[in-house]
């Protein structure tokens, strides 16, 4: 399908969100992704997967892309692409790392860096529906400038609790010292295993690995912990 970039919006110094119009899009569930294919004038092509920050029936989608230092596609999407430019997309893709408003029960979201994107789609999907499922988000970022969707997450909708964890630098006076998310953070701020929440973990491979292992040690049923690792370039 051919997508046309409608608008671009900086999220952080290294990331931006793209709003794209896709005529014929049949809607998507929160958490799904698309494959974006770019073709250069000389015919060279590259395909990458990006999670959608949007969901629902509309034909206007939102992606958010973080620039990877040696990347080939992400620097183009973050630095070069302009409204009116065209991309090819395939999707919606993936029926596993998804949340639908019809699902009952607590939902624990755990994001590392740009791993917030598909989880944001779930948060927005919940807000747009009549769902009363309690949501918690634990969002780990390097420093306060690396937050995506800041305005929406700083004033969360009722029923969503957001906890921030900073790994390199904190806002002044922040109680939690800098550092990676640990089992202590998970037991202090996440729904306990006894509540049997649906858990979605998304971020870089090392982050997802560490968090998923810690959750299982805390007694979470591995079948309830769904992960999505972000690859590279």
């Amino acid at each position, binding site marked *: 399908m051919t997508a046309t970039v409608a608008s671009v919006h900086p999220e952080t110094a290294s990331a931006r969100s793209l709003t794209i119009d896709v005529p014929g899009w049949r809607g998507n569930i929160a958490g799904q*992704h*698309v*494959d974006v294919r770019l073709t250069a004038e000389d015919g060279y092509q590259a*395909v990458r*997967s990006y999670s959608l920050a949007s969901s629902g029936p509309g034909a206007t989608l939102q992606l958010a892309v973080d620039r*990877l230092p*040696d990347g080939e596609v992400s620097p183009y999407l973050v630095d070069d692409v302009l409204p009116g430019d065209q991309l090819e997309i*395939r*999707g919606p*893709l*993936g*029926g*596993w*790392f998804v949340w639908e408003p019809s699902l009952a029960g607590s939902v624990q979201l755990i994001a590392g860096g740009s791993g917030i994107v598909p989880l944001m789609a779930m948060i927005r999907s919940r807000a747009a529906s009549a769902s009363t499922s309690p949501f918690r988000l634990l969002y780990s970022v390097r420093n306060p400038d690396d937050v995506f969707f800041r305005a929406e997450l700083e004033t969360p909708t009722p029923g969503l609790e957001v906890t921030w964890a900073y790994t390199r630098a904190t806002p002044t006076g922040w109680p939690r010292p800098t550092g990676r998310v640990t089992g202590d953070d998970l037991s202090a701020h996440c729904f306990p295993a006894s509540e049997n929440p649906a858990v979605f973990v998304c971020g870089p*491979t*090392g982050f997802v690995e560490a968090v998923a292992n810690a959750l299982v040690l805390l007694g979470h049923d591995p079948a309830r912990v*769904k*992960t*999505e*690792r*972000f*690859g*590279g*370039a």
Partner: protein
Amino acid sequence: MAGHVDGNALAGPLSELFAFDPTTASARCASCGDTAVLARAMVYEKPHSFIVRCSACDAVLMVVLQKGDATEIDLGGLAWLRTLG
């Protein structure tokens, strides 16, 4: 860039071959017998190919090759693939 992603990443490339989303199907590893949703497998992305490994024993479950517009899958490491429900 080192390391792998999850089986979820296969939904796009495999959509060319399967009428359903195979990442939500359960797959049995022919090496160790572990059975898990394909979305939980470990996927190593290479240019033009995805090496899919069992998350229990690391054995290669399948290789997805993209030859231009054609997609080819080597399913040699799978005992079976079954839809849920």
